[in-house]
């Protein structure tokens, strides 16, 4: 996955867990929490979807790396490098 695809993958997961949120206007550098409503239950879902779809494990101490789309890409980029993007699953 390229960096853009990682961001697409995260957005697709957020769209799955938060179908009523508007995601087109998300700013990459701003904290996701400040732009759409995501609480700790939702971050647990993002982590579980990453595991389910891509087999990526995110340990609890790294949850903070998922704060913004840009930080997600920084953190997950190396882990997802050789994995294909799956959207709409």
């Amino acid at each position, binding site marked *: 996955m390229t960096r853009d695809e990682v961001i697409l993958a995260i957005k697709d997961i957020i769209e*799955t*867990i*938060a*179908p*009523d*949120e508007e995601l087109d206007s998300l700013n990459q550098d701003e904290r996701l929490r400040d732009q759409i*409503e995501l*609480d700790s*239950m*939702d971050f*647990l*879902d993002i*982590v*579980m979807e990453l595991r*389910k779809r891509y087999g990526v494990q995110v*340990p*609890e101490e790294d949850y903070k790396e998922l704060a913004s789309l840009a930080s997600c890409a920084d953190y997950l980029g190396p882990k997802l490098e050789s994995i294909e993007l799956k959207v709409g699953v």
Partner: protein
Amino acid sequence: MSGLAAGIRLAQYDKRVLILERHYLWGGLNSFYKRRGRIFDVGLHALTNYAPKGRRGVPLTKLLRQLRIRHSDLQLGEQRYSEISFPSERLRFSNEFELFQSEIERAFPTELDGFLRLTQAISDYDSFTPPDPDLLARKVLAEYIGEPLLIEMLMLPMCYYGSAIPGDIAWYQFAILFKSFYDEGFARPEGGIRPLLNLLVKRYKELGGELRMKSGVANILRTGSADFESAIGVRLDNGEELFANQILSSAGYGPTMAMCGGAYADSVQDSDRGQLSFNETVIVTNKTPAEFGGHGAAITFFNDSDVFDYRAPAPGALGIDVRSGVICSPNNYDAKVPLAEGWMRFTALANAEYWEALAAGDRDKYESTKHGASEAFLDSAARFAPDPRPFEIDRDAFTPHTIRRFSGHPRGAVYGAPKKRLDGTTDLAGLFLMGTDQGLLGVVGAMLSGISIANRHSLQPTA
């Protein structure tokens, strides 16, 4: 409902899940039944915690997110208004907080300041810090409100919609309910509880969850030594044994411990059993309550004196308390397709032992006493809402005996045990409680209970 919600969460993350239901219908305390071609709802008067699509930080939004259900799938119709009606005063409220505030200001002008401070305290109340279950609402209310009548009027709806404690309600539950009523609001899923239950069942099955009806659990199987025991499975009423890594029970604390047997069953105290149950009479009419009586309230909470007495009535000639109650008019919620017939539901506090004893005896006597109790309660309620009986085309009524038979809750205690198990744990590893005895209230609360127990004990990465 807590079980279905937990099942959806678990199946969503590829756990193998089996839901066992003793009856041929699902839903537990929020269910429905068919009589003479009509569908009667049980439980649901109002879906509290109503919030419009996308409202942040509220239970309904969290619930939809967790179950991946769209707001529009619930087809919620908002209430027009509801009311708290006492002989000397009536307070209306709607899904706009301003109406309730202006009603308080009109009726109790000197209490407005205290009421707003109370509202602020409740809004600051952090639902994530472990609450103090022994702190009761009347004590806290007295710090904000001086007028005894206003305290009674604020207590009445909260007790009826969630208290397992005679005469009072735990402060944290009052705070949660207060928000769910006045800051959020009331709505009704179009078509009642059935479409909502069907939506949950469909979602659960699509995710691969298995649901077995008419499969009651007789025993919870355990293993280990006396100082560390685990629940490892269940034995069904038909003798079949099933084994699992975890068991989540929505049967209530007492019944769940009874299923574990031995010292667990013996440890259940009388104080672990709820006391409060209800009779309900449903009247179907050939005109709507608005047509025959100009009645616009979705819910009317009434009390016929200035003091509200919330407890199981003494086993008198009626087995119910006619002095206070709740009247629900499903017609008075917005709906895309308005209900063709008029519906009114009348809920009264009832004495469970009295109705159980009657039900164990002569069937005709039970039925005639039930009819007599309905008539007495309708007479009483007619002082606060139009009497539907001249327009009646159908009627049904149920008692604490009926509730106990279908929900398994001892004494038909709708709000379960007075003592709640907020973290859902039990003395057995692998066995967790959800639903009414875990402390969350209402349809939304029941589902959130199942979700939070599944998240916390089954889905956290450490689990």
